[in-house]
């Protein structure tokens, strides 16, 4: 009987521990980060993850790119970055399309979970105009003045002025190769969208840019061999 009680107490002790309690402090992740919308008035379910992801689609038509996407995406066609050699970057693809579903400012943040589709009321500018990625006012779909998205990470060991070896570390996110998406630079290559952990007080950057937080322009020179 004593052994049984000990076992039961052990199970009870396991049950007592809270996973959310363990996630507090340094490395708190998404909870409390700028991407935690659980307290927004439009989020009646008060969930953290559901603004973007849903475990089952419940027969809704949802963007098919894995990640169980649960937010409306943008249908904008963008003016894209032009490289110095004149090549024009293609339209964004992959997960950057998901980010632009809020950050290009054409889709309501509250167009999610099958609700308010095409009838959003809260837009990125309502949060902070600085969070809108095509920042150009006269051409709202202008991505030509932002770092190219969905661009191949074109490492050439012979190019001393080019990019660093993708095997190099990327802050605390593993290697540069780890933050590429099928070899391409996407929004999430620089921004750790789920976390506050990498460089606190930044726009969710994987490496801080301030010298006081590490190295001046640390994020840029992680990839760029300058």
């Amino acid at each position, binding site marked *: 009987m004593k052994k049984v009680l000990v076992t039961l107490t052990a*199970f009870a002790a396991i*049950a007592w521990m809270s996973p959310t309690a363990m996630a507090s402090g340094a490395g708190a992740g998404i909870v409390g980060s700028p991407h935690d919308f659980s307290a927004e008035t439009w989020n009646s*379910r008060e969930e953290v993850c559901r603004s973007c992801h849903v475990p089952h689609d419940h027969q809704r038509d949802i963007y098919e790119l894995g990640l169980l996407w649960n937010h409306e995406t943008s249908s904008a066609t963008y003016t894209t970055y032009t490289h110095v050699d004149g090549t024009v970057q293609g339209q964004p693809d992959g997960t950057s399309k998901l980010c632009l579903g809020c950050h290009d400012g054409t889709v309501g943040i509250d167009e999610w979970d099958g609700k308010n589709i095409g009838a959003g009321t809260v837009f990125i500018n309502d949060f902070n105009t600085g969070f809108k990625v095509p920042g150009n006012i006269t051409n709202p779909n202008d991505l030509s003045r932002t770092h190219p998205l969905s661009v191949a990470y074109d490492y050439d060991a012979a190019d001393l002025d080019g990019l660093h070896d993708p095997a190099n570390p990327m802050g605390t996110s593993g290697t540069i190769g780890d933050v590429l998406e099928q070899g391409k630079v996407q929004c999430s290559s620089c921004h750790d969208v789920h976390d506050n952990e990498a460089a606190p007080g930044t726009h969710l950057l994987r490496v801080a840019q301030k010298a006081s937080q590490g190295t001046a322009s640390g994020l840029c020179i992680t990839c760029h061999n300058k």
Partner: protein
Amino acid sequence: MTIPSWVRIFLAQVLMALALLVGVGPVEALAGRYGSDKRGSNNLGEGLAGSAHDFSEAEWNPSGKMCAPCHTSRRKPKQDKSSPAYWNHALSNAVYSTYTTVSGATASQPTGGSKLCLGCHDGTVALDDYGSGKHQNAFIPKDGLIGSGLGDLMRTHPISVAYDYDPAHIDGLRNPVNPMGISGSIASILDEGKVSCSSCHDVHNQVAVAQPLLRAPMRGSSELCLTCHRK
């Protein structure tokens, strides 16, 4: 000889239920966190009876037996002889389109315990297709259907996928020794190390969060997601 995961899960659940019954665990505190839901009558430790999987009063189950739609103590035609769960319900023959990751990796067909769930929840097999009868009358209501259409599991959380814990991956999964609600550890709710339907859904119990039988709450916190996902 290794003990099958379903036996371990079953024993863990029995021990948990006993612990709660004899008052060894912090029942009151847990009731505060997980508590009864909007159904009102579902409190800690009430188990299967009265839950969404209690079909004892269903029209299509004239026997009135609670466990019989899924399990039998005897070998009967509907039983999957490869299943250790004394399965008594017809299984689905569907071949599913499965979850595909951003990098293009496609999940394999569901296996193990998840196949048993899909025997009702994919909508191709009748709820009353169990035991020795040949009933084909009642099908799962739309809100219990998994997938965008029959056979489509592309837009649902991957199932029968390995729980790929890597402590070096700070954006990955949490240590499987961490607790999963009041169901023991994450490891204890994996099916041979894989995430299955029952990893999130406590199919026999409304102990944690009654609807839809979740092991930890989602509303108000996304606690269920963040129990495993290190985000």
